[in-house]
Every structure is written in structure tokens, then in C-alpha cells.
């Protein structure tokens, strides 16, 4: 029982540490530019890089997304190659971007979690796309308790999964439930394995 408690505690602490990130509040302009009237009434929909609006096309240069060499190679194939490069740049997950100045504005005007028609829940809390050039202060809620975390620049897939699991993600409402389920499952598995080993040793 002591072992169970210890493993529970260690796992919980590890998860908490992995999920916790320094809370850096971004200074926001009083009146952020570039969000049309229509965008404030229209729901976004999810893409591989987070929810995104259909109305705004990405303006990221292909070079930034694909790299100079790859872009040049594609563009050497003429108009078709150029088109492929543009399409790749437009549809690439935002995390692929290196977080240049464009990606910052995109986080405001384009990449948005605002609900997704039953496909995902959104919120107003730090729902920016991953990989923006400014760390975004995010408010995560778990069972009504509000905590603030900030996501570092270009968050990795692992930390994204963790953020979703712990409820610190902008789009998740799972809160503490999922981490508790994971921890309980892991602990139960460990206890079961231990018990089997003891039985085998007898």
C-alpha cells in the first residue's frame, strides 16, 4: 500500500511538473488590430494546428514553412511547383512555423478556438495556436477552479498532449479527470505487475 501511494505521488508530481510552465503574461495592445466584424461572430473550425477560421488565408511565406531549399526546388518546377509550395505553406500546422512576425498576427486574426460545431470545445481562454511568437497567458479551468498557465513558444506535441490531458489546453474541458484516470490506471497496472511478480516468486 505504501508502494502504491509512493508511485501515485511520484506520477502525479511528474505529470504536474511536466504540465506546469512559467506563467508569463503577454502584454497585449489595448486595441489589437486586424479582426473584422465578421470574425467576431463566426465560429472557427479545427485544423491540424488548432482551430482556424475559414475566412482568413495564411500569409506565411512558403520559405518559412518549407525551408529555402525545398521551396526553391518546388519553384523550379514552374507554376505547378509554386502552387504546391503555397498550398503546403497554407495548410501546414502552425507549429511548423518558426514563429515569425506573421504568426503573431495570425494567432489573433486567424488561429482561433471558438467552438467547432461539436467537434471540439473552445473557449476564450488563451486559445491561440501553438507556435506563436509570443507566449500566451492561458487560463485553464478544472471543475470550476481557475488556474493560470502559459504555454512556451512552439509547444511540442508531447506538451500539447499533456496540456490537453491536464485541462490546461485551451480547447479541453477535461480538467483533472483525465490525469486522475491516467494516474490511477498506471498505479493499478504497477500494483498488478508487482503482485504477479510476488506470486511468481513464491
Amino acid at each position, binding site marked *: 500500500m505504501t508502494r502504491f501511494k509512493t508511485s501515485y505521488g511520484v506520477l502525479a508530481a511528474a505529470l504536474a511538473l511536466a504540465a506546469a510552465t512559467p506563467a508569463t503574461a503577454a502584454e497585449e495592445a489595448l486595441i489589437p488590430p486586424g479582426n473584422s466584424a465578421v470574425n467576431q*461572430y*463566426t465560429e472557427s473550425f479545427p485544423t491540424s494546428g488548432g482551430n482556424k477560421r*475559414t475566412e482568413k488565408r495564411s500569409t506565411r511565406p512558403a520559405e518559412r514553412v518549407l525551408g529555402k531549399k525545398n521551396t526553391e526546388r518546388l519553384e523550379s518546377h514552374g507554376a505547378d511547383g509554386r502552387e504546391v509550395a503555397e498550398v503546403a505553406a497554407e495548410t501546414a500546422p502552425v507549429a511548423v512555423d518558426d514563429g515569425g512576425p506573421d504568426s503573431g498576427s495570425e494567432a489573433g486574426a486567424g488561429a482561433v478556438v*471558438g467552438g467547432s*460545431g461539436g467537434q471540439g470545445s473552445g*473557449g476564450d481562454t488563451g486559445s491561440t495556436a501553438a507556435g506563436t511568437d509570443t507566449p500566451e497567458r492561458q487560463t485553464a479551468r478544472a471543475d470550476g477552479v481557475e488556474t493560470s498557465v502559459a504555454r512556451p513558444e512552439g509547444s511540442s506535441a508531447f506538451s500539447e498532449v499533456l496540456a490537453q490531458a491536464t485541462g490546461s489546453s485551451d480547447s479541453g474541458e477535461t480538467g483533472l479527470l483525465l490525469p486522475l484516470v491516467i494516474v490511477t490506471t498506471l498505479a493499478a497496472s504497477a500494483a498488478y505487475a508487482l503482485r504477479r511478480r510476488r506470486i511468481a516468486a513464491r
Partner: protein
Amino acid sequence: MKGTRPAALRVALAIACCVALGGATAASADAARPLTTGVSYIYENDAVAFEHVKMTGSTMAQTPLRWSLIAPNKEPASWDPTNPADPNYDWEEFDVWLVNAVNAGLIPVLQVRGAPLWAQRCPGANETDAPCKTDPAKLAAFATAAARRYSGQFGGLPKVRYWQGLNEPNLSLYFMPQYENGKPVSPELYRDLINAFSAGIKAVDPSNLVIAGGLGPIAVPKYTIGPMKFTRELLCMRGHNKPRPKPGDCGGGVNFDIYDIHPYTTGSPAHEGGVNDVQLGDLHKMQTLLRAANRAGRINGAFKRTPLWITELSWDSNPPDPGGLAMPILKRWTAEALFVAWRSGVDTFMWYSLRDGEDFPETPSYLEPESGLFFRGPTVAADVPKPSMYAYRFPFVAYPREKGLYFWGRTPNSKGGKVVIQVRGKSGWRRVESVRADRFGIFKGLARGVRYGRSKRGAARAHYRKGSSVPFSMRPVPDFRQPPFGAENPHG
């Protein structure tokens, strides 16, 4: 023992009767709820426009009362901002609007909106329709002046009872700031403003009713705060599923009588948004929050249960917007929107707006609201009603169910009477049910045993006096993505 069993039986029967009676009462209370309709943002001061509003079956008309247009550009050194007769004010345009609305038999709703630059407290503020840190005391003074002017005792002008405090305070388009250092601040700023506004309006006549909120539907990071979160912050509540009060007394609570939401929906009327959004499918979330706030004593209003209104909702139509909703679907969604709202406990619903916006060739159609109930003509008199207008005037929905055909509707004049439910057969329309609309014109029920519509073919309609509703197709329309003001790229 012999005597015990009948006694127990009697008690059980009595309880059963009470439960049954209670249920019956609840059912009839549920049925006897009105669905008052109106049209919002009527800019025209033309008497014909108000006749058109009446034609839509509406009894209410709303317009923005723009503080920055009525007040002087510079704050006078000496004046009385609470005095509606102060020569620095110019009310003429709004006086005419109000007289026209009341002469047409409509109930006016005025939305005090924006702020002159001198009433804002942000350095460098330059927007009058998206004011930045409006001064609550100055708003209260203007509210007093407006309520005095339209108190029914000033210069022969009509009385206004319904007063809305500001527009969409959760959107950066109309209220600044939304965030400071990443933290949402607009709910707290708005709380001070609506309390001041309410004080100004009620000081003139305590029976005046103050409408708060008027919130936009969507959470957009940095720009807007989702209406659920905004309302929780405004009312000092917490918790999504089971809202409860935060510690403290919320400064004595928030002073308003009616709460308003603009649940513009990026899809069908059944569509639900994100956790903090309120689209048509989310109305129940706002009701739950308001009830919890009522129980917690967070709202100081005229009603025990704060009514939830919708003063803006629509979809652009195609035509004229190529990215708008095709008319057959718009007709269906219009009726369904009213049904969903009523079912969610909304008792007042206003459509945005009366006529399509002006067509500017250089402006993309998805940026122009073309969601009017009338196609725009060269003049208001030349406007033509859209087919969807008839669905707004006489909403009717019908869905095949296991035990029969379920139906709901509201008569065009919101009055009671006999309503005949008909279905379309091979030889025309035939009657399947006859019901009586209640005193608010609401009728609903189940045409038992009617298997019509299960094949997803055909249509049903309601017939009242000499008119019929728009036929409601039995073929369901699944939810799909439809931006309320039209898609940018309608052809992909």
C-alpha cells in the same frame, strides 16, 4: 392491519394526484409562455419601415440611441447633462424614430450605445462606437437625460420602458478594453457601467426595465470574451456545469432586469458552440447560469427569474449574398430558430434586421449584412419581403416521432384560436389535427398515430384563420457550417 392498507392506499393515491396535478400545472405553465418577436436595428425613419415591421408579426422595434450623435463632440464647460432639454443635446432623429415606431403600434426598445470621446478614460481613445473605459458617472447622466426625454411626460414624446445598456460589451468591436495584461477586464468594467446606467434609468421611473448583456456569441482570443465566461465574471459566478457564486457579495450584485444574448450561429439552429460560446444550441447553458445567479442573489432585477432575450440573430440569405443561406433552408432555420429559442425559455426574439444592407460594390458580400427580412429595394417602400419573412411571421415546425407527428408554432398575431395542422398528400393538403393556440398564440402537440413524414417525404403546415404557415419539409436538414453573415468563398 386491515385498516392500514386502505389508509396507505389513500395516502399513495393522494400523493399520486398531487404529483399528477403538479405535472399538469407545470405543463400548462410551460405552454403558456409567450414568444414576442421584434426587429432590431431599424435605422429608417420612414413610416413605411414600421409598417413592414408590423407585417413580420412583430410587436417590438429596437434601435440604437447613439450617445455620441446626440451629445456634443466636446464637453461643454457649463451644461446639465441630465437635462434632456439642454441645448447641447440633439435628439431630433431619435424623436422622429420613436414617434414613428409608437404610431405603428410597436413597443420601442432603445439601446444606449457608444460614447463621445470626452466620456472615455483611455488616453488617445478615438472610437465612439467602441468606447474605451467609458466613465460610469457620465453614462448615468446621459441615461437620466434619455429616460426623462422619453418618459411620456416630455414635449409630447412617447414613453420608452425598455432600455438596453450598451452593445456587445464582450467584443472588442464595441467595448474596450477586453483584456489587460492578458486578463479579461471588460466584465468588471461593464458591471460598473450597467449599474450606473440602471441607476440613471430607474431614477426617472423605477418601472423602467433595464436590459443588460446583448453579448456576441463567440470567444475569439484577444478580441472577445465568450459570453458564458463574460457573464460568469460579470455576476461573480464560477463553474461551468454547476455554476455557483464566488466568495464575496459581488459589490452588492448587478442591477438589471433582463439579460440579452446575440446567439449568431455558424450552422443550424441545433448547432452548439464552444464551452464559452452561446449559439442557438447553447441557450440552456446561459439559462442555467442565470438561474444560479438568481438563486445566489447576484442580480438585482424586477423579476425572480431574469428573462433571457435574443435581440439579434440572423443568417444572410442567398440571394443576394452568394455566400448566404439558400432560401429553402433559411425558411426552415428561421422557424426552427424561433422554436429552439422558445423551447430554451427565451420569451422575446428580435431578428437582425428589417432590410438587407446597402450594396457597396467594393465591399465583399460576406462583410455586408444581407440578413434582412426584406430584400432591399431602391426605397423602403420598394422593399420586397423574403420568403423567410413568412416563416418569421408565422413560425411552424413539425417532426415525425415514434408516436406521431410533433408540431409547434405561433400564430402571426400572437393570439389564440383554432389552428389546423395539415400535411401534403397526393391530392393536396389534408387535415391531421386541430388544436387551440393559447393566449400568446403558441400551439404545440402530437398528432398521435400520424405516421406521416417517416419516409422523409412530404411537408406539414399550420392553418390559422385565413392564412397558412410556410410548409415545413419532412426531410431533415443536417447541421453544416454556415457563417451567419455568409461564407467568404461560397464555391470553395
